[in-house]
């Protein structure tokens, strides 16, 4: 089966997540070999995902951890212990 670009685009996310069934995967691979447009879309999307998962893309505010644990420290030593709370 010959896929059109539009059909390939619909499956880019599944392709990147490796969720395509073997037959469709083969058709898409075949299309990608000959289609620079779809290859570019695939590559750029993949790059974006790499960047999203990159630890340096988002940074924690300075002192976040210290402030968090300081606040927790107070709560932890309040008279109410976890088992006395109703969830």
């Amino acid at each position, binding site marked *: 089966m010959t896929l059109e670009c539009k059909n390939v*685009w619909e499956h880019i996310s599944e392709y990147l997540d490796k969720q395509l069934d073997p037959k469709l995967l083969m058709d898409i691979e075949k299309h990608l070999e000959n289609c620079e447009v779809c*290859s570019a879309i695939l*590559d750029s999307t993949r790059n*974006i995902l790499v960047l999203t998962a990159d630890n340096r893309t988002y940074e924690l*505010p300075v002192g976040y951890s210290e402030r968090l644990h300081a606040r927790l420290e107070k709560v932890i030593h309040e008279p109410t212990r976890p088992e006395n709370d109703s969830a």
Partner: protein
Amino acid sequence: MPATVQKEKELIARIIAGETNLFHELIRPYERMVFLSILTMLRNDQEAEDAAQEVMINAFRYLKSFRGDAKFSTWLVTIAMNEARQRLRKAKAAQFESLDEDKEDREGDFTPAVLTDWREIPSEALEKKEMRQKLREAVELLPPIYREVLVLRDLEELNQEETAGALGIPVTLVKVRLHRARMMLQKMLAPYLRAAAPAKKGFFGRMFQ
């Protein structure tokens, strides 16, 4: 059962039994995850930090209700997303931003940007600080129902089932929204990705295959 899961189970049991100080240790691996999932939803450092503290406090108070059928991290991120959604809802009236579930089909066009003259991006281009800034801005522009899925799947790297569980939506919807979110990001970021590309002929390497 993986070692960390077993260790966490023991920690939780001891905390509930009264060794409350161990809670610091329990949450330490998840501080970043909780903050970032909230930050990307609220888009404000200060409020995200306050919300993250609330989430951890609630996790402590309700630790006993953690049943252990999900991972502790998933349980925690569920609380975090609920806190973020609650705060977003409160701000909604002012922001004109809707969390409506029924907006799905009215969002419009989810086709990617076609890049003519595309070249494989060298890793140095992706290393640039500006690129990361552009990405953060683009994520912020996603409608919340897409943003939350993208954040859990592609930033926190939860699997589909965990994401569905944390957001209280079916896996099928996670897939649809994730695809749309990724395509929207691709569309928004394509101009910058292209500008960063060099003039030499690239190859379309499929580096993860």
